[in-house]
């Protein structure tokens, strides 16, 4: 990162943009009718989503038995997907909040879409805890609400209860953060549209309503800056806490392979890793499809690759540590679980995970690779796969052979489960594609503020907040 904020002013935004051009560039794709490419992507995503809807409705109508689970393996795809999506969701907040606190100006080009991605990912994640229950129509019992049972509340000792609070809080805060960030841009678009037609169109009305009458008054900007800072400050520990709590779902259990103290940092790192991977995937597509090459420059890609490399190494370290603790604990059950991971019936999953999350990213040590979009894109996809399998491995290999050999069992997903997973991707991309159409994918307000960085238009002065 040192490079990014070094005083050698390599422009953040290429092609000597002026504020007006930024507005122009960002708004153009929104106001143009969608391209054929967009339609193709949307159709695919939407049909996947429909498949998922069908699968879930069938499962809810028939029973959780339509999944490949059994008495021994009580969780598999459902919670795997949940953790996977929550993980994806973490990158957004990371980029917009943590990098903001670290004064990483390059984040401005990507944070908007990263935050959007967070929201959609958390939506996908949120579905699974609900549908994985045997009686989803009663899932609201997981929240404490006044009732006529005595009253009987919930078990605040259960990590699942923690999850409910963590996920919903995370969703609300990210949504707020995202919206607050959007307000000035909404206003910009509102005013841009104003000229278009005499009587306001629906779209204009909407933008008018949601921009809350923003007029760019600096007295407001002044509070706004503070608010943004505060939200970033809140979101940063939140993002850590959320995945920590998710990891506690496993860490607080007695099952060997779950009962591990390193889970929180391990999971957080993994989450960020997968998140950045997903951001890269989307960014690379977006900059091509919506020709935003000037805003999402190779430099951004490069920076994120470095983040990948870092988190990948943390994850790798975690894998190693797990094995060491198991070996060093002298606990035969613990030791067995890890031997079983690497050599047992699910070894294939384990090795997919290792090669995607540890081996493949090593390529990123080479500058050449980091700047070759094609390769980076491929890597980002691999990382998504690898991180999905990480969760699968942790959940299934630990469960399927635990303490009593008599109850050892195997697990095979059914078509219903696979469709549900596909459906969640469908939902995610559907939302994202719609977002690309109707909202500015780049935070204009913030980009404009960093236009000058590395441009000769004005004397260098370290800004302060």
């Amino acid at each position, binding site marked *: 990162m040192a490079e990014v904020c070094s005083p050698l002013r390599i422009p953040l935004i290429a092609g000597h943009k002026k504020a007006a051009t930024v507005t122009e560039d960002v708004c153009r794709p929104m106001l143009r009718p969608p391209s054929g490419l967009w339609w193709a992507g949307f159709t695919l995503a939407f049909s996947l989503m429909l498949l998922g809807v069908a699968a879930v409705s*069938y499962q809810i109508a*028939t*029973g*959780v*038995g*339509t999944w*490949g*689970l*059994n*008495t*021994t393996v*009580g*969780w598999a795809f459902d919670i795997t997907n949940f953790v996977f999506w929550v993980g994806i969701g973490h990158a957004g907040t990371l980029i917009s909040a943590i990098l903001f606190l670290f004064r990483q100006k390059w984040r401005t080009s990507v944070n908007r879409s990263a935050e959007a991605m967070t929201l959609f990912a958390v939506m996908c994640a949120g579905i699974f*805890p609900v549908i*994985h*229950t*045997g*009686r989803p129509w*009663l*899932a609201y*019992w*997981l929240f404490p609400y006044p009732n006529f049972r005595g009253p*009987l*509340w*919930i*078990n605040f*000792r*259960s*990590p*699942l*209860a923690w999850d*409910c609070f963590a996920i919903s809080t995370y969703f609300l805060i990210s949504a707020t953060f995202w919206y607050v960030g959007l307000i000035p841009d909404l206003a910009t678009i509102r005013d841009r549209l104003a000229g278009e037609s005499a009587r306001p169109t629906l779209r204009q009305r909407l933008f008018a309503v949601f921009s809350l009458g923003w007029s760019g008054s600096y007295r407001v900007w002044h509070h706004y800056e503070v608010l943004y800072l505060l939200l970033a400050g809140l979101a940063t520990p939140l993002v850590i806490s959320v995945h920590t709590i998710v990891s506690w*779902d496993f860490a*607080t*259990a*007695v*099952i060997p392979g779950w009962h591990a103290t390193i889970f929180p940092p391990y999971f957080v790192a993994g989450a960020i890793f997968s998140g950045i991977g997903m951001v890269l995937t989307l960014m690379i597509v977006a900059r091509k499809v919506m020709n935003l090459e000037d805003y999402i420059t190779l430099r951004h890609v490069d920076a994120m690759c470095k983040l990948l490399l870092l988190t990948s190494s943390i994850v790798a370290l975690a894998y190693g540590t797990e094995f060491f603790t198991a070996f060093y604990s002298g606990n*035969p*059950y613990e*030791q*067995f679980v890890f*031997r*079983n991971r690497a*050599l*047992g019936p699910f070894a294939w999953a384990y090795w997919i995970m290792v090669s995607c999350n540890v081996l493949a990213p090593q390529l990123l040590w080479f500058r050449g690779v980091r700047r070759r979009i094609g390769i980076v894109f491929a890597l980002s996809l691999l990382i998504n796969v690898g991180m999905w399998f990480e969760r699968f491995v942790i959940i299934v290999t630990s*469960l399927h*052979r*635990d*303490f*009593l*050999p*008599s*109850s*050892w*069992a*195997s697990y095979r997903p*059914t*078509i*219903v489960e696979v469709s549900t997973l596909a459906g969640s991707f469908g939902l995610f991309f559907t939302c994202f594609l719609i977002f690309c159409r109707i909202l500015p994918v780049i935070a204009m307000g913030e980009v404009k503020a960093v236009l000058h960085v590395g441009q000769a238009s004005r004397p260098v002065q370290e800004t302060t907040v």
Partner: protein
Amino acid sequence: METQYWRSLAERENPSELARAAEAEFSENPLQQIEPGSSRRGFLKAAGFAFAGAALTGCSRAPVEKAMPYLVQPENTVAGRAQYYASTCGACPAGCGLLAKVRDGRPIKLEGNPDQAISGGATCAVGQASILGLYDSLRLKQPLAGGKPSTWAEVDREILARLRADGAVRYLSGTITSPTKQAAIDRFLGQFRNARHVMYDALSASAILDAHQQTHGARVLPHYRFDKAGAIASFDADFLGTWISPVEFARDYSARRRPPEMSWHAQFEGRMSLTGSKADRRVRTAPDEIRERLAQLAIRIAKLSGADDRFLSSASARGWQTTNDDGLPHVAERLWEARGRSLVVCGANAVHTQVLVNYINHLLGNYGATLDVEHPSRQRQGDDRALANLLDEIKTGRVAALFIDGVNPVAELPEAPGFDHVGLVVSFAGSLDESAERAHYVCPDHHFLESWAGAEPVAGLISLTQPVIRPLGATRAVVETLAAWTGQPVNAYDLLRQRYPAQWDRAVEAGYVAMEAPRAPVKPFSMAPVELALAATSPEPAAGYTLALYPSVAMLEGRQAYNPWLHELPDPITKVTWDNYASVSPAAATSLGVSDGDVVRIEAGAAVELPVVVQPGQHDRVIAVALGYGRKASERFANLGPRWIDHRPSVNDQGRVGENAAPLLAFEQGSLRYDRAGIRIAKTGRRIELALTQTHHTLTVPQQLGGEVRPIVQETTTAELGKPPEPSEQREELWPEDHPYKGHRWGMAVDLNACTGCSACVVACQVENNTPVVGKDEVRRRREMHWIRIDRYYSGPSENVEVAHQPMMCQQCDHAPCETVCPTLATVHSDEGLNQQIYNRCVGTRYCANNCPYKTRRFNWFNYPREDRLANLVLNPDVTVRTRGVMEKCTFCVQRIQEAKIEAKVLGTPVKDGDIRTACEQACPAGAIVFGDLNDPNSRVARLARDARQYRVLEDLNVGPAVRYLKIVRDGGQAGRPVPQGDKKNG
């Protein structure tokens, strides 16, 4: 709950009146109203009355609920209060005494009658399950004539019209232990000049009776007294599982296996049987080697006894020299040391073999001690020779009229008798089985819970069967039918009462009565047949594959094929459900190039195709196949279980469960042979995915994954037991002790040494707790719902494998991992140490099941169909029927705990130890399970918790299970077997 052994005083005085009163209750035939889709009113009327219906059918959400009281309430009946009636089990001829639990007019559970000698309070899996037969909706509801429904009057008229006084009348039945029924049959046959009553047992002990005919001059089946046996040698007799009277034998056997003084038991067998799994010394012996082994043993013991050189000389003359293989010498010594209180039993149905057995027992002086021939058992009376003759007569068309009672010759015999040449075939079968199908008339008998009858399982023990519900269909007791045809109609009740006028009250109350029985006319032991037997035995070892046909613990001869509970009951050894199979030894499997699930074709005259199960401990030349499968009755399971896109049926391509192996049986020297030498076996290339409830069979983890042995099942030796136990180290408790258990603290102790794995507990639990049957496919997916399972672990080399049975149910942990993780407080701890599961609060996250180290929690993956409203009548109204998506598990039969506590509260007395008995404990013949209050220092469970053998599974996890296990005692050195090292199983 206070039990009432008699139905009611009114009943005792004048049963017919009550019958009339009841008549008033059920104005119409209840069955017609229970057809699915009928009104709730009708259903309730049939069910008895009152509120039970709500719990039964889950209709409480229905807007309007009716409560229908009696018009005239019978004495001693109170709505919602269970009554217990003493009766006798009719599931097999063993004749265990029962207490039938009747709730609101419906029998819902069968328990053993503690006072009756055969049962002693215990039951077997089959007995437990047999109550479902009462509510079998495919039972015949009226007589059939030519396959069409008819009336009794009609049927009687037609049959009598077709009976000729001079024609050959044959009455084919199973063993009949009821004197009254025997009398009725004799009276009926008395009308005809040429009439004969032929008895046969599908699981024949004919050879034993014949052998005693030869050696003791009386065709009797000895009453085996395992409670007196200090040393037991069993040759292919699965007396703990299926042989003759398993409940009685298992109880007596384990009574003598309580450490430190333990009886010694050697098992010679080809397949791995339940009994073999408990033996101290197990010698793999192919069926065709048994006689030779026995001869060897006889010679050795003759030597030891020093008596009777005639036998020895003829032996040596025939070139018998004693070999030292298979530890026979050791067995001989052990038996000889224990002479007078030792016992040799043999399951082979071959006369010569049994003669040798008699001789050995005679040499050991066991007659009169461990074998009672003067008051013999009547549990097997079949005569294979007579059967063979009858079949011959039938084939050659020399039979005018054939009456089939309680047997199913078409399905049970090697070749199905063709009835074409028989003028009149009448079956008494309660449902349309293979034989009844071909009969001209079917005169359905009552279910044994509907009828008055008396059984005499052992000479001098009259065990009474009394009805606990009015017949659900227009069926008629066989005795009444026969009486009608004899011309003097009489009802079974009067018949029975006339026979035992003096002891009647006592008999009805206690369910049995002991009478002075005449001594069987036994002559002194005669030597001649022994020498013939020896002559017929060749010292040469046999070769080639041998087929061993055996009754499985669940299906027996196949009468239970209608019973889903028994089909879903995992075989105690192989853990296979919903199928029979050909088990082969690992060595044989390699040489045949097959593995689990490969379908092989077995030819021995007839041929069957069955999946292979590789069975450690089996003889390399033996292929074992269970009888009793592939029955017509199992066709009903075509649509069993949840139906969804990926669902596969529970039946095979023939639409039945398993294959019928009876065609492979054969008659040899007039006796039914269950072993066939020189069979052909070949791979078909097809594969079947077996439905196993356990797929990893040892406590040793796979070698490449470490190969360590887990201390789940712990063993010790008689030697070690002497030593003082080392003090267990004190643990630092992380939490403050916020939860003292002040009142009761329920706990359980399971004696792994006593447990035979017979699985009676599994079915008992299923009946008591309304556990659903899920079907073959769901079991395949490892989703069986049994709350208690019996884990079976092998250890040691496969040819000399050791077996451990471990009943595993919810351990009711003090620091239950499941409770902490449940977000909705659906599973929490009671202040009596129970791990409560509240179904209605459960949303089904399955987190608890994942976090359970014992994996004893069961999840309702679907709404398991309960469409058969008649079968629903067996549901226990005191236990919620769980819906889809909720977790369930063993509750320590909390409904029984509640009942007992409330009764105690009402009477103002404390709950006594033994007042509360869980269903599994109550059923267990071996007395391996003990439930009670750990806070009461004198309770049985508290004492066992202090026992030297006591340990808790996975104690290191500090989850504080409330279930103690007692270590298996491997009779080390004395059994001539290497002493298992202390760390062998303790990892």
